[in-house]
């Protein structure tokens, strides 16, 4: 399989770790060679978190070259825009949550907050496919990652990976009530 690169980005505390691991294991369950790496130095303190996944045959480092991601997953509007600018490749796909965690500059009144409309405009300007995931009806924001995973499964965005593969990945990673709750949201979007 040709190399396929996924750049996942958001803010520390949004549950990127579980999303990244579920994707990696889902890809593995589909029998595809895969590598991943997390960058989470000060992630727990509200900084940017990036996780990268690479799959296919001729892949070596888990780190994706700039603007070479086939898929960017943005868990937050500003980070989705940053991922779009620095990581997405020409003609790539952006799947993002319509969620804003205002960066410091916006809260201090120094910067303008970005919106989902800005993302749509940006994607049109560079010919990227944009998929917005609405999670406003969700009670527990810490499971928004499952809405993204469900959307990816439903639209079969990662080549060769089925819903069953992601189901198996979640079974590997979670148990009991956590598994039940996460699967409920995953299934609602898948």
């Amino acid at each position: 399989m040709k190399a396929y690169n996924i750049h996942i980005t958001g803010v520390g505390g949004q549950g990127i770790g579980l999303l990244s691991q579920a994707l990696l294991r889902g890809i593995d369950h589909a029998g595809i060679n895969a590598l991943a790496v997390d960058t989470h130095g000060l992630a727990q303190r509200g900084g940017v978190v990036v996780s990268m996944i690479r799959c296919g045959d001729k892949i070596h480092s888990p780190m994706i070259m700039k603007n070479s991601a086939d898929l960017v997953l943005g868990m937050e509007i500003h980070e989705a825009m940053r991922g779009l600018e620095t990581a997405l490749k020409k003609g790539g796909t952006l799947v993002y949550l319509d969620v804003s965690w205002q960066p410091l500059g916006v809260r201090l009144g120094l910067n303008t907050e970005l919106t989902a409309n800005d993302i749509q405009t940006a994607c049109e300007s560079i010919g990227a496919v944009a998929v917005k995931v609405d999670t406003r009806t969700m009670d527990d924001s810490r499971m928004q990652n499952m809405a993204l995973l469900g959307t990816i499964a439903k639209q079969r965005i990662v080549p060769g990976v089925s819903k069953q593969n992601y189901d198996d990945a979640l079974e590997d990673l979670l148990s009991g009530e956590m598994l039940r709750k996460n699967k409920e949201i995953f299934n609602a979007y898948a």
Partner: protein
Amino acid sequence: MKKLGDILTGENPFEEILMGNEAVVRAMIETGTKVVTSYPGSPTPEIATAIQSVTETERPFYFEFSVNEKVATEVAFGAALNGNLSCVFFKSVGLNVALDTFVQLGLMNIIGGMVAILGDDPGANSSQNEQDNRNVYKMSRVTVLEPASPKEAYEYYKHAAALAVKEQTVVVLRLTTHVCHARQKVKFDAYKNTPSYRTDFNSENGPYIALTTMALDMKRKSIKKLHRSKQYIRQAGLNMELASQNSRKKGIITSGLTYLSLLDVLETAAYRPDILKLGAVNPLEEISILSFLKAHDEVLIIEELDDILEIQIKAMAYDEGLTVKLIGKKEDEDYVGEYTPDKVRGKLVSVWPDITTDNPKAFVLPFDIPARPAQMCPGCGHRSAFFAIKKALGKEDVTVADIGCHTLGYMPPYNIGEVLMCMGASPGMASGLSLFNDKKRVVAFLGDSTFFHAGLPGLINTIFNHHNMTLIIMENGTTAMTGHQDHAGEEISIESLLKGLGIENVFLCDTYKQEKLTDLVKTAMRIDGISVVIASHPCMLKFTRLQRKKPGFIQKHITIDQETCNQTHDCVEQFGCPTFIRNPDQSVDINLDLCIGDGSCRPSCPQQAIDFDKGVK
């Protein structure tokens, strides 16, 4: 669910997707490592998380967080003198702390063998610098293996352990941040538990006293050990040559994750030079390197950070009288930052422009994307502390930072902490700043884990030499920044310790009591000599996580009464909790995804418009 602890202790061979930091723990178990010590620090703390995923009764070795990296090294060394294979692990700058002990290790006959897993941080992802610890290994005369991936981290630990046991020495496993944090499927071997700990220390196994002429004899022995290391490196095939079909007599020498970056870049290259990947970066094994040099007209050395390999390889070529053209670092930037695939591509093209590889252009979007610096968490006691302390500080006063979550106080809106060095440096720096200085009060900050780690000598010096400063201990009851590891404060009260040191002016305050804290700091700052304020509040990230696990937990929030709010914006601009949302119409709302309902923000509102949300179901 696959539980990490069960995976790591399985007796049959298996394949599993693991992080580099987790894979090395399986290697510890397979090699019969008996004692493991550490002080937490990125990029290695997940090694401890993996160790702790195995219950103490199931864990086939002893593990402790020591009080700092130096003590961790000493405990592991002592345990190995008893005949137990031991391991110490910590981050890059931890070696600076451990160095006094570490440099002696090469001289010692460590009968059980010892592995040191040292995590360098190229790119300074979560460190105060990106120091290249390879600079130290030559001085310490230790063998250093450098894996490129989780699979190699597992395999190389086993090599390191085998060599350490064979030569009764220490072997370093040099990891870098994105080897530690990479995930990949790895094949693991079988393991049989042999529960036996040894207490075989005997001074006749030494000498262990490196004084006078003994120190020189011990050095001679350590040099001989390195010669034998080279034999091991050769026999184990740790330096690996990757020949291409179309090399044009061009070659590249590299190591670690940089090797994988290189392979990615070469996937789209016009031609592929031959590659020599060094699995051992100290000592350099000459036979494999010289044979590679002799087979090529031009050899490029691509190495992350400093020119350690380059200088030694050039010296080797000079001694052999080789005519091969050796290319290393040229620009200042060659010494800076992580050698990602992008960085390696840039270097490769600058040397051989005809090797041109794909280089996609970044998009230029018509939007300014605001930066997102790390923040103190919602409810963080440090935020309340900085908000309160700022009111006590005069414009001229000097604030000295230290390492920990509270370092983030240097950022707006607090701007507290104007100079930062390393762990535990603040009392010493503050003492120096206070000399000849009767106009500005010097206020130093120190975390509780750091207090025990390296803060005490500086503080004792302050007492001994009668320096004039206020120390604020930012106590959150844990080693928060690196993931909530325990520290000595579990057993030792900081207050008793300070009083035992004879410090008369010790003030205690919960940071949520902001008015009281402001007053106490003002009082403390007026005192001649040393005064200490313990500004304490439990780490709310840790606390909230524990609360959420309890059955029937309901998340509380605060609310803003929009009728009362007159948009002075003190909450969002001065208190600065990331929970506040500033709407385009300048009204302020609460981000319910973030708010933990602690209410520490309430005193920040002059109108008292912020209150607990009593409408929560």
